[in-house]
């Protein structure tokens, strides 16, 4: 089941403890992220105006966010004018019901899907299954995840945690494919044979949207395999579920993103397939088109002056590929269809900072800043992480940490208290120091000494030594 939703089932440190033990997954991830990291740097270096593009991309997104309602209403009017239907979904349940009702109205029990994170966000596949409708994922990686009854672990490469041998075994088991090797070509061919039948036989397709242009009513999907184009052209009915932040005001606004997105995500100059469609055209493509505009927490994110920058995200996944935490823990540790640095800020915000497990995500970062450098729309992820920590912490019940932090702040507020605290720590550390190092700390701090030694407090602090030197000077 590739539907994953955005509610983590446990706090990040606990989930990470589990995923870190999967050595195979860590090897797979390290290999994949290292490769794409280097490729992205090359692709970006080819454009001397890359920084200007980033600035432009961020500025366009900010214009959108400043007047989101207006652009969405324009989009709605344009799509309707061109023969499409527009629906508004406030939350996941509403969106699920809208899609399921539309599918049921056509009396079918099978749909095909273009890879879409927004439909994963609302756990659409499971909701459809509950209504007796089976959705088949047509993106190769999504199909792998679906067949394995696994969860996606990456925005762009949902099966990044799996290697070829594992996929070969899966296809043998689930598709009955006779696979002589685990050559990617052979694996892809097996999926192609399976999917072709689905493309030709299925009446209803479901997609997400990368962008939608308000004034022309044009929806856009960017993809690599061509399966998306098959879904967007062959079936009779097309239902697209789009996060409301994906709207762009005018046609020229999409230009910078056509450069920013492929280079940031797959390190390609241009992605192989870009599909644009505007409403319906008699005799060409689906004859019925529904656009579902999904809120699901986004207007709450928009209302926050600092956090709203998160909605600039174009789901390129560059931040995942450069993140040292993601590289080690993998996407599953984040417990949401949005993993990595962007997930650490998006997931808790979409849940209105009300979900205790999701609220652990802003701490799942060493604040190294690599994500901010990589982001094609300049989302200052480290800053938003810190901001969210500040929003969440005051609402927690007092604990050992908060008492320690408050005590530390009180000590730091006067230099004589600070000096006294150092002296006290120096006296008190005695039993902890062995062979010149602290090797085991009690309580919360034990996390440090599980793998690292700590230097002991020296006989004199800087200020004590300095004072002596100054006296000697005079």
């Amino acid at each position, binding site marked *: 089941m590739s539907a994953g939703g955005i509610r983590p089932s446990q706090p990040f440190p606990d989930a990470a403890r589990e995923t870190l033990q999967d050595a195979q997954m860590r090897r797979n991830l390290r290999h994949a992220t290292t490769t794409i990291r280097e490729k992205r740097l090359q692709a970006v270096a080819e454009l001397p105006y890359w920084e200007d593009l980033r600035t432009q991309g961020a500025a366009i997104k900010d214009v959108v966010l400043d007047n989101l309602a207006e652009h969405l209403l324009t989009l709605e009017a344009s799509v309707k004018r061109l023969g499409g239907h527009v629906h508004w979904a406030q939350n996941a349940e509403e969106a699920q019901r809208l899609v399921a009702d539309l599918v049921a109205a056509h009396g079918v029990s099978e749909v095909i899907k273009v890879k879409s994170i927004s439909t994963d966000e609302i756990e659409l596949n499971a909701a459809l299954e509950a209504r007796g409708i089976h959705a088949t994922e047509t993106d190769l990686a999504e199909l792998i995840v679906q067949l394995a009854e696994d969860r996606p672990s990456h925005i762009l490469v949902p099966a990044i945690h799996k290697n070829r041998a594992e996929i070969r075994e899966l296809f043998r088991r689930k598709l009955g494919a006779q696979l002589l090797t685990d050559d990617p070509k052979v694996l892809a061919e097996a999926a192609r044979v399976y999917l072709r039948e689905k493309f030709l036989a299925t009446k209803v397709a479901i997609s997400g949207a990368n962008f939608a242009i308000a004034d022309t009513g044009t929806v856009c999907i960017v993809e690599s395999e061509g399966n998306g184009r098959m879904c967007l052209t062959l079936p009779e009915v097309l239902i697209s579920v789009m996060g409301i932040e994906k709207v762009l005001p005018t046609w020229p606004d999409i230009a910078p993103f056509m450069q920013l997105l492929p280079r940031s995500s797959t390190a390609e100059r241009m992605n192989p397939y870009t599909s644009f469609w505007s409403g319906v055209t008699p005799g060409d493509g689906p004859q019925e088109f529904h656009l579902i505009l999904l809120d699901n927490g986004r207007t709450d994110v928009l209302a926050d002056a600092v956090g709203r920058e998160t909605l600039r995200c174009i789901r390129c996944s560059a931040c995942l590929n450069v993140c040292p935490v993601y590289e080690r823990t993998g996407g599953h540790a984040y417990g949401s269809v949005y993993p990595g640095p962007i997930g650490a800020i998006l997931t808790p915000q979409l849940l209105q900072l009300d979900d205790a497990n999701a609220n652990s995500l802003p701490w799942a970062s060493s604040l190294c800043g690599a994500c901010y450098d990589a982001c094609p729309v300049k989302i200052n992820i480290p800053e938003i992480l810190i901001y969210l920590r500040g929003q969440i912490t005051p609402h927690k019940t007092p604990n050992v940490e908060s008492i320690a*932090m408050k005590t530390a702040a009180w000590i730091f507020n006067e230099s004589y208290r600070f000096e006294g605290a150092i002296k006290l720590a120096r006296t008190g550390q005695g039993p902890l120091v062995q062979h010149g190092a602290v090797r085991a700390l009690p309580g919360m701090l034990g996390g440090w000494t599980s*793998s690292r030694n700590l230097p002991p*407090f020296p006989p004199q*602090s800087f200020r004590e030594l300095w004072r002596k*030197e100054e006296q000697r000077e005079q």
Partner: protein
Amino acid sequence: MKIDLFITCLNDALFPQTGLAMARLLRRLGHTVRFNEAQTCCGQMHFNTGYQAEALPLIRKFVQDFQDAEVIVAPSGSCVAFVRDLYPKAAEWAGDEALLAQVRELGKRTFELSEFLVNVLGIEDVGASYPHRVTYHPTCHAARLLRVGDAPLRLLRNVRGLSLVELPASDQCCGFGGTFSVKNPETSTAMLADKVQNVMGTRAEVCTAGDNSCLMHIGGGLSRLQSGTGVVHLAEILASVESGNTDVLDTARVSAEGLV
């Protein structure tokens, strides 16, 4: 130039030799050095961990402690980045316009040691001598927030007797991240393991950096593995001179007291 030392709480309490080395170096270069004893902590730990209400008084205190300073120099890219990059954010988020104006102005006078030497003073050769095999870890905040670039490397390349070896995947975070190392110890350790392996692979005697917090982390891992590779702050390397050192602040004496 009159320089105010910003010693940072961690350096004051655990690594006094670094502050002394920095003071000695700046005096050797002909500058007047002052240490305002009222200073304690910039508030980064509180702010970054989510205790922003507790950090604000520390930020205001820092502004007060350093209001008369001509320039402020610290042996920590992270704390300087916090002052320069996040103090304005802290003031903005608190809606304190007066504080915002003060910290913007303060940020322009606050420097990390290597960028101060290379970019402000225009010095790349500080006359140091350190005959050892050394590898350099660029710390995240110095590299990505302060953009110190190759300033530390330029300084190291001019140190007599020093053989500089490149650290593979040097731009990768060591996994310290302040309270991250305690709140997510397993993930932090996984990051550290790769860093330590890369450091050991260089066969350097010493791994250096511009931040004792990261070095405490990397050094803690190296020490646990009994690797034989030590960590030394960049300031201490730059302050080292050939024997016959007659400087007022004598790190050799400090070492004898058991600090190193």
